[in-house]
């Protein structure tokens, strides 16, 4: 136990250590200040603007920003869909693979454009190298950059300060193309290049040489690095980061977990820096850290015991089903928490084989709605929605007009915030409810008893929250042989899942940008004695309460029927 706790403590120390460094760097990047990479990246950045024919200094209001983002995502979706559907024409090694059917491809394209990376596809048995590199990995970068852009736009709007005599400006929140370019070139690419090479040094495969001697290979490391860094999570291999060619050693495992968490955690600091009060950032980091540590502790404790099926068969020991020896239960438990508090969804152990209480952790983390660290960018902007809500509730309690960072929080913002916070749970419950209440959802379910319910609930939780991890028994793709010959999709699961991902991504984004637009032009009131401070322990506790109340309790009845039932009984189904 002490050994396991020490490992977890070391990981947490690494994250806390990187937050000011990377967070401070990102603050400089997104305020267009000088950084140490200017000499290298600067020319590439300016060339990009020339090719795109855009003026980065041109500020967009929230509607223009949202429109650019939406158009960019639609074009990205179409291109990805076309790439995935024309596999027989691809350069590089193709394995002779045909394209997957339209419904599975719709699901996969939705999955990558929304930073979800839900896998109804099987990487090494259905996709060519070109699909993986030019299709999936490109969206791994871009969907993460889009998330960062939205978060930064919101922070900028919150931080916008105007003297009281200034005319109301247009409420500009930045330039989408500039944010996209700077997020990609200054943040994602440099870290991904270094990380990819570190991973290769551990044994992660990186070759264009094709399958040899029963070993499916490919450009894995380049994809693995951005898959973790961008909190994407779609594996080169079907079993994702438990496969030795994706994650061969204890050290590669640590590096990958670090990559998943580093940007979402550091963004809290970036936020504190840009709004000019670092304590604001640390308060949010503290709330996220607390909820994260609780989830680590629960799954760590749960997986140290075997499952009822193992006990009844006479097996003694921890739950090693679906886990590899080099990770054991400690690293698998830590990863399980890391990948579900963030919207990563890469796995290094089989979630379907977690103990009942163990599987409660990823489900609860998803129920928080990507707010605890969350995805790259998505985590922070979702958390800020909760913060505004907490400010509003706190304001009601003390009977004052709520203010956040000196800006009045009024009816319009709270309406938008409520919609943003409730959109995703609504999509989850509608999707899962439809799948369970009708016969359409049945072909996807693998397990019997409450586990079948858990599979379905998890599928929609994961897709609508853009996480992408799965109780992998749940299927949307029937593939008798490698290469897609004779395969077909489960249309209902593919299409509803795809729509859940798109809705769960873009509805909140539009609403968040609308909030940004609403607060950007607001006057700043001076801090007074009666101002409720949002950088204190008291406020942090209120925030935890709001998140747990809204996130977890929305799903509590559903969680009772799945993981909690299984955690409480020794009955086998």
């Amino acid at each position, binding site marked *: 136990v002490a050994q396991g706790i020490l490992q977890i403590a070391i990981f947490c120390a690494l994250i806390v250590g990187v937050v000011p460094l990377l967070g401070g760097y990102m603050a400089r990047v997104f305020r267009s200040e000088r950084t140490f990479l200017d000499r290298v990246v600067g020319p590439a950045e300016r060339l990009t603007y020339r090719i795109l024919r855009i003026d980065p200094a041109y500020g967009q209001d929230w509607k223009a920003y949202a429109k650019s983002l939406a158009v960019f995502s639609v074009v990205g979706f179409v291109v990805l869909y076309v790439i995935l559907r024309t596999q027989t024409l691809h350069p590089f090694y193709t394995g002779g693979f045909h394209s997957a059917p339209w419904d599975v491809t719709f699901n996969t394209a939705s999955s990558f454009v929304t930073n979800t990376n839900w896998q109804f596809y099987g990487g090494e048995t259905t996709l060519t190298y070109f699909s993986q590199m030019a299709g999936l990995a490109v969206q791994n970068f871009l969907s993460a950059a889009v998330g960062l852009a939205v978060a930064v736009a919101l922070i900028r709007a919150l931080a916008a300060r105007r003297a009281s005599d200034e005319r109301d400006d247009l409420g500009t929140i930045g330039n989408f193309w500039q944010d996209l370019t700077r997020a990609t070139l200054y943040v994602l690419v440099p870290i991904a290049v270094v990380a990819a090479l570190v991973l*290769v040094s551990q044994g992660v495969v990186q*070759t264009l040489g094709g399958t040899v001697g029963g070993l499916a290979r490919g450009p894995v490391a380049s994809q693995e690095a951005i898959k973790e860094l961008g909190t994407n999570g779609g594996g080169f291999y079907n079993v994702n980061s438990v496969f030795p*060619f994706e994650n061969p050693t204890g050290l590669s495992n640590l590096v990958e977990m670090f990559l998943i968490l580093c940007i979402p955690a550091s963004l809290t600091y970036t936020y504190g820096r840009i709004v000019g009060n670092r304590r604001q950032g640390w308060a949010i980091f503290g709330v996220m850290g607390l909820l994260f540590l609780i989830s680590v502790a629960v799954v760590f404790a749960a997986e140290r015991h075997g499952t009822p099926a193992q006990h009844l068969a006479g*097996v003694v020991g921890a739950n*090693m089903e679906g886990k590899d020896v080099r990770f*054991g239960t400690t690293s698998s438990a830590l990863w399980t928490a890391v990948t579900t508090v963030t919207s990563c969804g890469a796995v290094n152990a089989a979630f379907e084989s977690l103990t009942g209480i163990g599987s409660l952790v990823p489900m609860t983390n998803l129920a928080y709605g990507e707010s605890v660290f969350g995805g790259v960018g998505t985590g922070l902007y979702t958390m800020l929605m909760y913060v505004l809500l907490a400010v509003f509730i706190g304001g009601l309690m003390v009977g004052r007009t709520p203010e956040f960072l000196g800006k009045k929080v009024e009816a319009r913002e709270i309406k938008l915030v409520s919609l943003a916070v409730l959109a995703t749970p609504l999509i989850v419950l509608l999707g899962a409810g439809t799948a369970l209440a009708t016969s359409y959802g049945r072909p996807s379910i693998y397990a019997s008893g409450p586990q079948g319910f858990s599979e379905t609930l998890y599928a929609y939780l994961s897709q609508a929250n853009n996480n992408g991890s799965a109780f992998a028994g749940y299927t949307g793709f029937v593939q008798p042989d490698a290469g897609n010959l004779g395969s077909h999709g489960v249309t209902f699961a593919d299409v509803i899942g795809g729509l859940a991902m798109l809705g769960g991504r873009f509805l909140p984004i539009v609403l968040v940008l609308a909030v940004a637009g609403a607060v950007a032009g607001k006057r700043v009131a001076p801090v007074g004695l009666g101002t409720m401070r949002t950088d204190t322990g008291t406020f942090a506790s209120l925030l935890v309460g709001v998140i747990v109340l809204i996130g977890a309790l929305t799903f509590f009845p559903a969680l009772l029927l799945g993981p909690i039932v299984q955690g409480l009984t020794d009955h086998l189904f």
Partner: protein
Amino acid sequence: MKLTRDLTTAAIAIVLFTVVLGIGYPLAITGLAQVAFGDKASGSQIKQDGKVVGSRLIGVSRTLDTGRTDADGAPITKPDPAYFQPRPSATGYSATATFFSNRGPNSAAAQFFYRDALAAYRALEGPYNPGLTDAGVPVDAVTTSGSGVDPQISPANGAIQARRVAAVRQLPLARVRQLVEENTAGRVLGVIGEPGVNVPDLNLALDAQAPKP
């Protein structure tokens, strides 16, 4: 900005980023990786007579033919007692088509699987490990790995199998234990990850030490 203007910018951006991030980036990493870590980047291959027969990172069961076939006509094999055996696999140790066992915590079918796995392990190791009970069987030996090709077994599992391998190969137990020791990867810096015995490496070392009887 007009919608058409956004569309043009978006189209150029996607093409540009696809070329840079989708082709330039992976090819550059491939070049660097092949130069700096050629063996690892190519999959840590095990070669025999110039042919790739496996990888040091991929666990594969060494089996013997029983001469019988199952209902589908596929040959039934049994574990080769002269080798260390990796953990159970849901995929037949496939490194080209991977999937999880998806065995749930309260699955009735799982209980039967574990019961059979315990019986099979004790049948194989029991004769060389008198007094081996269900409770004495290491958990990693009877649960399927996540990857289906877990190259490692726990040190406890390795210690039990060492007695069988030593007896079958007529090697001194101390020598086999030493080989196990040499092919055990500890925790990184003594802390990170879990210790495990690398089965592909160990079996290669065994064959180099003493040819299979």
